[in-house]
């Protein structure tokens, strides 16, 4: 038994690399003290560690799904591909944090430590196969996120955002645990496999199961910020330092989506008495999440807040992909998260640059960006078009795939709502694009931290967006062949 558990570590190397990276960063941070050169070391270590992690994930995309550590964790191609997206997102935010003056210099190494910590939590969450690992993943993700939110010392917005995040998070985690405890009571096990078997064996619709599942969903729904639990998201996004916001828009969200997909596929993929109820529930939540997110994003002054609402809208779309089941839906979700990661990184990088110049993320400060900084301005325009789902960019293909998957499944109403939402989202994205391109900048416009590497970075974010919009077949086929572990 012990030997099997130890040999299972061979499948867990990416996570181990991330954990070791985090420990190394922690050690360096404390060993070097307040040394000027420390920061470079820490960044180099972080990038090398995560690149190794990315490499080992790429190298070991599993063909067959297996469960390890006595069935508590699974390694399947779906979770591995999700993890790859998460690691890419984390690496991207490293550069944003390096450039940002929103995080004080002495806290930048702490940002890296905590980002890698959240990543470890997200990876655990994406491959969790029982209630305990799921809870551990959620909490590893959450507790470090609270710290990241209030990273800006003596800043009233940052600490307020931290308070709100921690309180909301505590409440939802508590409710989720309460639901989990009843699931354990009803099915007598915390393993997903046993719970699924128990559900299949049930003869009639059971209200207790649905209520427990609902309470269970509260915790995950809060992590992905879907409709009834989205209220924390704009405040936290606005109050956190910009690189932290970029990070929150990517890693916890993707991890949450991975776990929603896994729970839905595992528990309700095979028909049982509760499937119908759950499907209807997620459909309603998806429709409301999209609509509320996109409508609230209209007329927001703060760009960070607008991006928060827009990311809520995107989550609604992805949730729509979750309930389509089948290969097509899964490929669409994976593709969407990848494109979404690049778009979010780019959008937040430009926002960070504007914040560096003006100290505020107000939309008026984006005026004339395309004239004063053509590369930034036009990259941001492409990103906004892609976020709105315009061809020929990646965002269009991503949306198209999800809507097609929904139509194939017969979810016509939902597909229609998604299309209408796409139009609504055009309004606020194009408004920002118009501010950047058509209006004239006022006053001095130089951004001190805007260097050659910044140009390379933003172009490196735009190229995949265009590339994924034109040559998406191969990667989409790879994603469609992803498998979720089923017992």
């Amino acid at each position: 038994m012990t030997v099997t558990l130890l040999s299972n570590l061979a499948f867990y190397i990416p996570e181990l690399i991330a954990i070791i990276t985090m420990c190394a960063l922690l050690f360096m941070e404390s060993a070097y003290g307040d040394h000027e050169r420390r920061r470079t070391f820490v960044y180099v270590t972080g990038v090398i560690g995560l690149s190794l992690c990315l490499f080992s994930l790429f190298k070991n995309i599993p063909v067959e799904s297996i469960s390890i550590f006595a069935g508590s964790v699974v390694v399947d191609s779906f979770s591995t591909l999700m993890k790859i997206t998460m690691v890419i997102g984390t690496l991207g935010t490293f550069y944003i944090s390096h450039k940002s003056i929103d995080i004080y210099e002495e806290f930048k190494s702490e940002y890296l430590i905590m980002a890698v910590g959240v990543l470890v939590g997200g990876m655990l969450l994406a491959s969790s196969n029982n209630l305990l690992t799921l809870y551990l993943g959620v909490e590893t993700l959450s507790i470090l996120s609270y710290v990241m939110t209030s990273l800006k010392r003596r800043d009233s917005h940052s600490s307020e955002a931290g308070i709100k995040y921690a309180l909301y998070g505590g409440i939802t985690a508590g409710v989720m645990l309460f639901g989990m405890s009843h699931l354990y009571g009803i099915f007598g096990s915390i393993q997903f496999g046993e719970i699924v078997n128990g559900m299949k064996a049930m003869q009639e619709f059971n209200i207790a199961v649905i209520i427990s599942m609902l309470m269970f969903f509260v915790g995950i729904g809060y992590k992905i910020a879907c409709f009834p639990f989205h209220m924390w998201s704009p405040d936290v996004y606005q109050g956190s330092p910009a690189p932290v916001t970029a990070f929150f828009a990517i890693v916890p969200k993707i991890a949450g989506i991975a776990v929603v997909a896994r729970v839905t596929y595992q528990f309700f993929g095979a028909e049982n008495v509760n499937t119908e109820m759950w499907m209807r529930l997620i459909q309603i939540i998806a429709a409301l999440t999209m609509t509320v997110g996109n409508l609230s994003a209209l007329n927001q002054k703060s760009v960070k807040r607008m991006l928060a609402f827009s990311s809520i809208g995107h989550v609604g779309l992805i949730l729509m992909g979750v309930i389509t089941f089948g290969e097509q839906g899964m490929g669409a979700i994976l593709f969407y998260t990848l494109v979404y990661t690049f778009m979010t990184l780019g959008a937040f990088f430009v926002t960070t640059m504007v914040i560096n110049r003006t100290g505020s993320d107000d939309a008026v400060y984006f005026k004339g960006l395309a004239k004063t900084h053509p590369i930034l301005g036009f990259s941001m325009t492409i990103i906004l078009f892609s976020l709105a789902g315009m061809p020929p960019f990646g965002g269009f293909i991503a949306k198209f795939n999800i809507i097609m998957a929904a139509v194939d499944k017969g979810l016509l109403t939902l597909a229609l709502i998604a299309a209408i939402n796409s139009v609504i989202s055009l309004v606020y994205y194009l408004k920002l694009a118009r501010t950047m391109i058509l209006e004239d900048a006022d006053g001095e416009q130089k951004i001190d931290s805007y260097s050659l590497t910044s140009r390379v970075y933003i172009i490196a974010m735009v190229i995949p967006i265009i590339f994924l919009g034109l040559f998406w077949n191969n990667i989409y086929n790879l994603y469609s062949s992803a498998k979720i572990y089923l017992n």
Partner: protein
Amino acid sequence: MITLKAYLFISLVLFVTGLVVMLSRKNIIAILLGIELILNAAALNFVAYSKYTAANLDGHIFALFIIVIAAAEAAVGLAIVIRFFQVKESVHIDEASDLREELTR
């Protein structure tokens, strides 16, 4: 003989008390206490189910994890409250109202 129902009733009372505390109290530390009550309600449920219905120790293990994580969460929560207090000189939840919707036009 204490039945399962008695345990479930107590844990439900704890859960509801926690929710009420969180919704009604304005002091952030009191709200954190409410969260602790909810977590303890869940832990009690796990242990009770482990004793009465499930024939395994999963519930006990889960309860131990809940205790540890609740401690970690409380530590981080209190640290954030301290930072909030340093800025605002208050731990009243109504003070946390700087971040709000600002619309153009």
